[in-house]
């Protein structure tokens, strides 16, 4: 014992008799600075080691700027609908038609052993006809391309099609119609309704006659000149007259007015042979579109004729419009040549399909812009047998890390996929990253400037084409190792672009559905470059997660 230590013992002999050494007086409280709550959950170390502004446990709490608050709740879509026992896929089917972007929220489930599906129409779930195709009851891979909604279940690729409607709907006004009196009308029942852009073209002709004044009319103003003389301009002055053509909706509201007037001193009438008016309106099926004529001024006579192409041989039909795309009502096989894929993803106007009838190394791609063509020029397939990190290295998923680079995730490696420009072998596969892959195919999620995924090592990575995989899941890795003991096929993910958040849903303790969400604030991560690690969590029971752009 050192001299100093011995001295201390001698000065305080009572300490030997007590369990605790009590000081003669309590020290003043330690003044603590205010700790801002800026960081997220940390489970990767002892609570004594994690930053004071972070937390070792958090549920249903979110970070906002410098603070924390209670998280958001959820609203049910379709209050009364509980029908699907298990939803194997839910996705927003988005497609572009005629320069407009459309969306349909669609969910897939099993009816008996077949494919059943429902579409949210803004008010309720509308169910389609159960397909003749069987559905393999596993979490489905879904994709939208070319106006089609595709699903892959390991035994097939099936499609729900938005077939283009009749793009030239022609409907005629009644044959021989001739509106010659004030308030006269001609009508068309709009069936089928639903113009692609709510745009309708109405065509008619107009003739207006006015009376030509006989003799010398002119203007005479008496007493207007000095000496109260009369101002007189001799000459002919015709009458003014015309019509106003009204186009009305089913409720009699005027959608459009067009005036046709003439004033004449020499011509007795004027004719407009083909007037095409474009109106924008939402007609329901069976609504009436009415053409009405209203007299204006003093026409001696007039006539308006709504066009009838079929019988009256007018140049075009009285009503022309492009019909909506018409959805088919059931799922059908995409193509007899398409592989029995487990995972599909659109890439460069092609469908990339992973696996075929359980062959874990098979990859195929459709022809450019033709998702039904799997044998023609530009399509192809390959067996990716050259493996290094695993003897099989099953193909799991894919995600675009740049506009022309697809990251192909295998169980223990990641390959790079790109378009070659050579139609003979249109898609090229290259080794990229070895020793890192994923066992959770649906954890792969397109996020801002890259992809996020759950690695096979239970680490969550952010993977951009520029920087490669960056681990962001340190705080929750240990928790995932301990709790993610179920089948990783049930792992799913979502991307909230408004809040910049990656949602990772995992089945805990062997469950066959998602019991916990881990939520990562990627937007903040990218802004701060890891100065804070923002994970939070919430308990929820769900089968699948999707990101949609609109719910109404």
């Amino acid at each position: 014992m050192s001299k100093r230590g011995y001295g201390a013992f001698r000065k305080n002999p009572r300490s030997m008799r007590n369990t605790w050494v009590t000081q003669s007086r309590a020290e003043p409280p330690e003044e603590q600075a205010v700790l801002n709550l800026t960081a997220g959950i940390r489970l990767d170390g002892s609570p004594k080691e994690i930053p004071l502004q972070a937390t070792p446990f958090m549920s249903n709490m979110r970070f906002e700027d410098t603070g924390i608050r209670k998280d958001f709740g959820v609203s049910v879509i379709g209050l009364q609908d509980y029908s699907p026992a298990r939803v194997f896929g839910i996705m927003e089917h988005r497609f572009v038609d005629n320069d407009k972007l459309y969306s349909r929220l669609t969910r897939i489930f099993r009816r008996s052993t077949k494919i059943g599906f429902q579409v949210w129409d803004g008010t309720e779930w509308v169910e389609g006809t159960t397909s003749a195709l069987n559905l393999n009851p596993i979490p489905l891979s879904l994709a939208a391309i070319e106006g089609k909604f595709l699903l892959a279940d390991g035994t097939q690729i099936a499609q729900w099609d938005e077939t283009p409607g009749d793009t030239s709907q022609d409907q005629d006004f009644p044959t021989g119609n001739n509106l010659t009196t004030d308030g006269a009308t001609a009508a068309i029942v709009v069936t089928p309704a639903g113009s692609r852009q709510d745009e309708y073209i109405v065509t008619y002709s107009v003739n207006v006659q006015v009376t030509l004044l006989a003799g010398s009319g002119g203007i005479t103003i008496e007493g207007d000149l000095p000496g109260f003389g009369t101002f007189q301009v001799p000459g002919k002055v015709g009458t003014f007259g015309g019509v106003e053509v009204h186009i009305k909706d089913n409720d009699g509201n005027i959608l459009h007015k067009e005036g046709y007037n003439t004033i004449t001193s020499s011509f007795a009438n004027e004719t407009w042979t083909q007037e095409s008016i474009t109106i924008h309106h939402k007609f329901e099926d069976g609504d009436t579109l009415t053409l009405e004529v209203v007299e204006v001024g003093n026409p001696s006579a007039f006539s308006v004729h709504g066009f009838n192409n079929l019988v009256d041989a007018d140049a075009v039909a009285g009503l022309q419009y492009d019909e909506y795309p018409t959805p088919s009502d059931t799922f059908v096989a995409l193509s007899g040549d398409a592989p029995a894929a487990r995972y599909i993803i659109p890439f460069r106007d092609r469908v990339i399909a992973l696996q075929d009838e359980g062959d874990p190394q098979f990859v195929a791609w459709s022809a450019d812009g033709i998702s039904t063509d799997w044998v023609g020029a530009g399509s192809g397939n390959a067996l990716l047998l050259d493996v290094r990190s695993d003897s099989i290295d099953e193909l799991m998923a894919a995600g675009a890390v740049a506009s022309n680079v697809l990251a192909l995730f295998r169980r223990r490696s990641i390959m790079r996929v790109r378009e070659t420009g050579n139609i003979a072998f249109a898609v090229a596969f290259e080794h990229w990253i070895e020793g890192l892959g994923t066992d959770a195919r649906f954890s792969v999620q397109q996020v801002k400037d890259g992809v996020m995924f759950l690695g096979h090592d239970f680490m969550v990575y952010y993977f951009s084409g520029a920087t490669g995989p960056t681990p962001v899941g340190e705080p929750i890795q240990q928790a995932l190792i301990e709790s993610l003991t179920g089948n990783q096929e049930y792992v799913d993910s979502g991307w909230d672009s408004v809040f910049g958040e990656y949602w990772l849903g995992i089945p805990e303790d062997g469950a066959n559905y998602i019991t916990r969400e881990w939520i990562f604030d990627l937007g903040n991560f990218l802004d701060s470059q890891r100065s804070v690690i923002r994970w939070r969590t919430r308990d929820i029971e769900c089968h699948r997660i999707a990101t949609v752009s609109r719910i109404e």
Partner: protein
Amino acid sequence: MPESFADPILLPESAGVPAESFIVLAQTSGQASFVDPSVRWIDYEVFTAEWQSPTLNRTDPRFNMTLSTVTLFYYTEEEGDIEVDGSSDGGDSWPTNVTLTLEKSDSHLRQVTAFLHITGDDLRFRLRFPSWPIVKVVGYAPRLIKRGLRVNPEALHG
């Protein structure tokens, strides 16, 4: 065959740019739900929320500490409650429970103090929101008092 799938929903913004983004959940109940910033419940029930602090007494493991008070700094849009619980055993138990009433703060920062007075070797507190009011806690200040030196009697008596 369905009567109709109705019309596709036309997005209101310019083509290619979605107006909004939602996380949609296909729940095990058979319902589909979306995460909604404006609602306060899950499955029609107000859900609990919890934030737990890390260990506060980390200066010298030889000393016991007392967590005397925790002062919270917050904003809230309306008056509401917040629960502050204290633990002296690293979160194994939460014997000290204080419910604080938070006053409407408008735009200025308010503060409120919970008197916990717990002594132990792993001091933590947790926040819970029993009601909905949008409370935003931006920071906290714990008041720690150093107590006696902990001595292992076995080490002393050999």
